[in-house]
């Protein structure tokens, strides 16, 4: 069905595509809204739902199928950029070659692992071992290395953020120091001499840190989240009704 939908879209004249997309967007939004709002009853499979609920997996599968077709676009984009880079010997074309080789090696290894994991291309080495080596030893390790970079970037970013240049950055610096000290044993040891109950306990670093986090930071964050949630709703409505003016709903739409 997903393939049929994509094929049908290609037959629509260009000038009618935007109204068609708007119509489909509206119908899809209406379908999910009705499924959510209509009263429910006990269905034959023992779950609660309405007459639209059993069709949800079908709608989900069609949507997934349509999305699956777009993976081809990604692959084409990737191959086009890197093959041209190799063909024209652009600066750093060796990296593009590495991308292309890795791409095809991983496809072959993935397919062998899926359909013939016990096949042994080299004596004593199974296809599944090759895949595991590439995936766990290569991709996952590289992913972790990139993730680890964040720690170093946090240092340089916080150095810039905490530089005292204004009243605001001074407040930020001050509160950051208090929160950081309040989270570590060494920090809490500084004020460990203060009583753990009574008014004086409020001045223990761990309590100050908690106060900053829960009474100042959390309300501010919640206020931002409220704004985001309402904005999200408004944007969803605008997209549902195709009111959003972007390139894909350009001025003439």
């Amino acid at each position, binding site marked *: 069905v997903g393939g049929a939908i994509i094929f049908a879209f290609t037959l629509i004249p260009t000038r009618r595509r935007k109204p068609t997309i708007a119509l489909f967007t509206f119908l899809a939004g209406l379908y999910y809204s009705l499924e959510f709002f209509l009263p429910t009853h006990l269905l034959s499979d023992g779950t609660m739902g309405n007459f639209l609920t059993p069709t949800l997996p079908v709608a989900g599968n069609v949507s997934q199928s349509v999305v699956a077709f777009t993976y081809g676009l990604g692959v084409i984009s990737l191959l086009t950029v890197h093959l041209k880079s190799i063909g024209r010997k652009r600066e750093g074309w060796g990296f593009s070659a590495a991308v292309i080789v890795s791409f095809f090696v991983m496809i072959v290894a993935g397919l062998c692992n899926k359909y013939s994991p016990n096949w042994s291309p080299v004596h004593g080495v199974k296809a599944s071992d090759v895949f595991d080596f590439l995936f766990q030893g290569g991709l996952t390790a590289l992913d972790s290395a990139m993730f680890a970079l964040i720690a170093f970037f946090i240092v340089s970013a916080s150095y810039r953020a905490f530089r005292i240049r204004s009243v605001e950055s001074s407040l930020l610096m001050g509160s950051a120091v208090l929160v950081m000290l309040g989270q570590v044993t060494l920090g809490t040891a500084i004020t460990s001499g203060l009583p753990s109950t009574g008014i004086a306990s409020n001045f223990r670093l761990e309590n100050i840190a908690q106060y900053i986090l829960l009474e100042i930071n959390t309300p501010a964050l919640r206020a931002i989240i409220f704004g985001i949630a309402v*904005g999200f709703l408004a944007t969803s409505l605008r997209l549902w009704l195709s009111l*959003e003016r972007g390139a894909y709903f350009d001025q003439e739409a």
Partner: protein
Amino acid sequence: LQHAEDSWSIAIITVVFSLVILARILFARSGKLPTIRRIAGLNAIDEAVGRATEMGRPILMVPGVGGIGSDPLDTIPTLNAMSIFSYITRIIAKFGTHSIMATADPVVTGVAEDVLRDAYNEAGKPELFSTEDVRFLSDRQFAFASGVAGLVEREKPAANFLIGAFYAESLILAEMGQRVGAIQIAATNQTVQLPFFIATCDYVLIGDEFYAASAYISKNPELLGSIVGQDYCKVFIVAAIILGTVAASLIGSHVGHGEVASLLNGFLNIFKE
């Protein structure tokens, strides 16, 4: 929350907010345009594009790592980002500057190609568009981050626009831009990533500014109307917070008894569900 019946209060509040926003959209269509406060990050778009043009360096646009279609929490910000990128691309086309968009999702790649092509066409410079400028790097978060880092290092963009759904990779992307001296404008719906952007970018759209961006830059009456509708909804939320605080305080201090207490509890339960 599977169906409205699971929590009628949430369903009713959603419908009421939607109606308020729609009513303001219809009202705005009648002609009276509301004004929106100045948003520095959006005013700086022209400055960023102009700077890249003067320096003869490209502009990098990243619509985040969120996809379209799989998760609404990623889809809506990504589509919203595309709307903003459409506007930015028109300015880029006007200046005749080279731009690159790095994507982490194949669906976004397709949409991005259409967005950029349409924007260049509308600006009357279709020859400036190349499908090579929309680059699908990887759908794996850190492979994408490393791809963007490499792109920034090689191309040395003068302006970076990081707009969309970002997660742990946000700091890597923004720090790399900072290192090559790019002017950076960021916006995301992910509140956890906002501090990283604030620390590394020149301008950041915070909270609902991100969703108000397309209305702000397009000055479209319907979109401006929806922003006013959003503000009405926020007034309702603030009123509910104040009333809830008063109600909880009254219950806590045992001022309200019997029917009064049950009324106050009933009011609080609407928002607790």
